[in-house]
């Protein structure tokens, strides 16, 4: 095995590890609404979301194409060490926000990390500013606002239709509905988020010369492994963030949960269709806040929502900074030594963070 192939293997493993943390970190957002309204028990909701995340990864490749072709120029990157450093930036930021219980965006962390490492390694010419603006930044601004509006309008319409009925049967009905809307949201999440990892691995294969940069093609093993990693990450949970999303932003009834999930699923699926790599965290948060504000503006805990906005604003530059620094560190060593050392150091730091977090852990909800 050549040194370049060894770095490729490290990048693929790291990308799948990122996919796992993405599932672990983000999918809590997907199931929180169903859990908060008691439409599903936490364990059933997480298992259900894992299965649908896996299925969702197979239904489109538009987002993977965007990540592979429209963020950085594959022909300008000399080595996969750059992608490795970008992934380190994304994973480090994901774990830091997980540690502090902030639902920030894994997707923006990934793109920020890769852009930061590419900037340091290959300069500004290798970063595709137009693609990032058109396919990442503009949709990143529009999507949560759109989800907010859809969630708010949907809940207002819903209350107009069923508002005078007895609450018991209405709540039961929307709880059944949430099984479907929650499933759709999980499917949408798998579609958009698993594809980002597929895009990174495809990009690595192009840089290594295994695939052509001219014709975009994602190998089947890449789709299956990315789908499996995000599904496993989802199943592993992320109880702290479930708590933040499910109850600390807003206390919801089942109709609000249905509207929020419907808004989130519609925005993510529509965006995935056009290849926009969205943050599912941003979108579902927008939907949840919209469904809350549509009922009563003061019902939304705007302080918690404000903390999330701060995390979102910080995500791209922070992940880019870590990605850039990670590249500088790996570049100090020859060949594959840098990635191996950094991966080993990363594993130790992750183990320490997880052990500390578990010691002070919030017990997993039961049921």
């Amino acid at each position: 095995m050549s040194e370049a192939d060894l770095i490729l293997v490290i990048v693929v493993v790291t990308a799948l590890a990122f996919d796992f943390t993405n599932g672990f970190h983000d999918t809590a957002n997907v199931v929180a609404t169903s859990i908060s309204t008691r439409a599903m028990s936490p364990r059933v909701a997480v298992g259900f979301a894992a299965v649908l995340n896996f299925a969702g990864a197979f239904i489109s490749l538009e987002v993977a194409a965007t990540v592979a072709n429209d963020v950085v120029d594959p022909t300008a990157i000399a080595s996969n060490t750059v992608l490795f450093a970008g992934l380190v930036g994304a994973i480090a930021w994901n774990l830091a926000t997980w540690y502090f219980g902030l639902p920030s965006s894994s997707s923006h962390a990934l793109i920020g990390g890769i852009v930061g490492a590419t900037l340091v390694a290959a300069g500004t010419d290798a970063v595709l500013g137009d693609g990032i603006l058109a396919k990442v930044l503009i949709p990143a601004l529009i999507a949560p606002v759109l989800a907010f509006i859809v969630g708010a309008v949907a809940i207002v319409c819903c209350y107009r239709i069923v508002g005078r009925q007895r609450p018991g049967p209405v709540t039961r009905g929307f709880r059944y509905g949430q099984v479907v809307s929650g499933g759709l949201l999980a499917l949408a999440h798998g579609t958009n988020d698993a594809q980002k990892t597929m895009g990174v691995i495809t990009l690595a294969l192009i840089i290594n010369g295994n695939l052509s940069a001219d014709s975009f093609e994602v190998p089947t093993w890449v789709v299956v492994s990315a789908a499996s990693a995000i599904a496993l990450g989802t199943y592993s949970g992320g109880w702290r963030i479930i708590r933040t999303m499910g109850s600390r932003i807003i206390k919801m009834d089942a109709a609000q949960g249905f509207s929020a999930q419907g808004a989130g699923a519609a925005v993510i699926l529509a965006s995935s269709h056009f290849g926009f790599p969205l943050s599912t965290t941003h979108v579902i948060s927008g939907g949840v806040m919209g469904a809350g504000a549509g009922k009563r503006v003061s019902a939304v805990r705007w302080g918690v929502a404000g903390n999330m906005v701060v995390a979102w604003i910080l995500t791209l530059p922070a992940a880019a900074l870590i990605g850039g620094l990670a590249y500088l560190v790996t570049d100090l060593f020859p060949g594959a030594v840098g990635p191996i050392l950094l991966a080993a150091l990363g594993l130790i730091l992750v183990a320490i963070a997880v052990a500390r977090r578990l010691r002070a852990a919030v017990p997993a909800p039961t049921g």
Partner: protein
Amino acid sequence: MTLATVIDTTALWQTVVFAFVAGVGTTIAFSFSILGFTRFAEANRNERGGQAAVFAGLALLGLLATAAAIAFGVIVMTGK
């Protein structure tokens, strides 16, 4: 170079319109089905057969519209 030359405004608009119609439309359709089921149960309890049939129809129509919207969305996604 203007912003409009970089951004695919058609795709963005289509995303906004599709997401709005799908998100709000599905919630409205499902709300009508719940209204139908709730009123059907009441009418049935009070032995008002005609009214019960109308609300059962509304409930089924709402459910069918919801299912059709979801199926359409998934087919469009997988069709590309």
